[in-house]
């Protein structure tokens, strides 16, 4: 969305004892391994991870489709699931952007018994951290790489890049892996063509975009690409699989964990 990346303005808290994890609906139903890996990575750093069972979806699909009331109802329920004053770590840049930058707009002015007040919503938004942002700026993670030498690419979702600065923190994490060469693919910053309902409503334009994205990733001659967003990866991996390409994307949480543990990474669709 807008360039509202506020990493450089943000006051980061000290390393907390506990954090919440917001798993996102896509990870919940399609890629739970990434969620488990993110938790393991955080736990290895001595952090207790609380995963509230009442969470579902950040509301972005309805919000981006113009159904603000529906988005509002769902978003508000999420806020209520994370009452403690501890960080809410989100393992998707675009959901993180939604919760950090759009919730106040969406929920701030609402009234009624279901609804929190501005202060509650503001407090919530300020506690939202994208996963890689949290690793770099709060945990100051210095991953020790135990994996084999390899070349990887990083794909940053547009919202993650422009709202949460993931191209900076994701890049920093991968660059710290001693045996990994981070390869910049052509049109690295260009959208993969997912865009939620866009991929359905304008399937042909989306198809043209993901064709280019997958082509550029394959041409970069890497063993895998890494991303902090499963939305994009569902799109790109789906296209790569359809084209019978062997390249796959992997969530950065899973990738980092495997590099740290020295186990070989496996790609998932």
């Amino acid at each position, binding site marked *: 969305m807008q360039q509202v990346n506020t990493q450089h303005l943000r006051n980061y808290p000290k390393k907390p004892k506990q954090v919440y994890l917001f*798993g996102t609906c896509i990870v919940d139903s399609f890629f739970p391994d990434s969620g488990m890996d993110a938790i393991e990575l955080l736990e290895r750093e001595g952090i207790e991870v609380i*995963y509230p069972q009442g969470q579902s979806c950040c509301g972005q699909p309805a919000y981006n489709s113009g159904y603000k009331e529906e988005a509002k109802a769902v978003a508000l329920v999420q806020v209520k699931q994370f009452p403690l004053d501890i960080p809410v770590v989100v393992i998707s840049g675009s959901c993180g952007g939604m919760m950090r930058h759009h919730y106040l707009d969406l929920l701030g002015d609402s009234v009624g018994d279901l609804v929190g007040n501005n202060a509650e919503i503001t407090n919530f938004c300020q506690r939202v951290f994208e996963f890689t942002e949290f690793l770099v700026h709060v945990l100051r993670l210095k991953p020790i790489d135990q994996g084999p030498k390899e070349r990887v690419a990083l794909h940053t979702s547009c919202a993650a890049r422009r709202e949460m600065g993931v191209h900076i923190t994701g890049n920093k994490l991968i660059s710290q892996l001693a045996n990994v060469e981070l390869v910049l693919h052509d049109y690295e910053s260009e959208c993969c063509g997912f865009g939620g309902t866009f991929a359905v409503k304008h399937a042909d334009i989306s198809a043209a975009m*993901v064709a280019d994205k997958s082509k550029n990733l394959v041409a970069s001659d890497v063993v895998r690409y890494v991303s902090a967003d499963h939305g994009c990866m569902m799109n790109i991996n789906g296209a790569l699989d359809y084209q019978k390409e062997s390249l796959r994307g992997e969530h950065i949480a899973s990738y980092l964990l495997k590099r740290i543990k020295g186990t070989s990474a496996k790609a998932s669709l």
Partner: protein
Amino acid sequence: MKQFNEEESKYAASAKAFRANVTRDLGNEELRSNFRGAMDYLMAKRKDAFSSEDELEVLREQCKLIKQRCLAKLPHLLEQLEDKLETNGIKVHWAETITEANEIIAQLIAQKKGKTVVKGKSMVSEETALNDYLEERNVECLESDMGEYIVQLAKQHPSHIIMPAIHQNKQQVAKLFADNIDGFEYSTDVDTLIQQGRTILRDKFCQADVGISGVNFAVAETGTLCLVENEGNGRMCTTIPDLHIAITGIEKVVEHLSDVPPLLSLLTRSATGQAISTYFNMINSPRKEGEKDGPKEVHLVLLDNGRSQAFADEELRQTLQCIRCGACMNHCPVYTRIGGHAYGTVYPGPIGKIISPHMLGLDATSNLPTASTLCGACGEVCPVKIPIPKILLRLREESVKPKSDKPQVMQGQGAGRSNVEALIWKVWALVHKSPTLYALSMWGVTRFRFLMPKKLGGWTSVRTAPKPAAKTLHERLKSKQEKRAKQAKQSTNTASR
């Protein structure tokens, strides 16, 4: 020339037409490669034009504030502009609709018994379809901007607001010239092509009765019309013919002369990566006594055409900050794929998506706001910081609102609403706001994942379908927590023994 028809222009942008255009243009490989190449070039040029991100950010913020200040005072500034221009000897005309604008211009030309017009580049005159209107009245219009000239020869419309013929490559232009210009010496060398075009245009400037141009900035303080151009054709159009008519949208007014330099600098750098355009014209008056050139009469037509509707809403008003640099198109991954003509609107690309609904109505443009991934590239490069993705969201909201009899913010509100889609979102909200229903539906999705269809409409035309996991993250963590609780209990038991 095609006859001008308001209904037709509405159809051109309709959902049905948009789909057909997209299919046609996505399949045209030459077109795709023309756009990709040109956009890559323009993006690189823009990037090189700024010494640092910081410099760019400071300038963007400054120019946003200038435009917002001017828009906040718009009614007052327009009156001041009219006053100053009239004092300077430039006659001002107000047009609410495109038809009114065309009538005013046709009358001015008729009064001088004008038969031939040379035009500098003007997107507002494209908006009013002025050429078609005048041709119907036996006035010959010749586009003198090289890109516009090419487009006119090809009987097309501009595909980009700054580079109208960017969809054509040099081979295509050479063929077009060969087919249409007598005595054209075939060449695909760009300089030779342009030189031959210029020679033809040169004579036309001297013969024309009327010059028509656009305006980039209209300065209220001094009554000055500023015109940015690279070919010198704008200066020819506004100095040689006896009658000069300028046409522009009401949002182009700026308060002070000192507002112009930062806007100009950011405009040319954002558009083509130039530090300054080759020509910058400041028109203050018609020819004065003792002067050797310049038109005897200068007129300005100020067009509304839906701009007031955007102005009336605080959020949508930001649409009018636009200085028409085209950077949003150059950086748009959708525009780069489908090109400018597919949109079916005079203004294509991201800015076209947010301005056209005010001109044509949301009913005629309901497919435009959804044709975006909201990637944000446009908002990131916009020199006056128009939050284009946010405005797209707002237009989506207006588009799917239930129709009502209450006064509407936008013409055509609710035109994109489908009852099926509305119901889907209602059910979606119901499920996702109830942890119990959500758990139940996820249980269903994962347990019955073998029922997941292999074909999912457009999604699986180029991708394999994703497969739900065997167990959700919720479930896996629930059992993990239960296991932990059990372990904790066991260890307490052992300890107590």
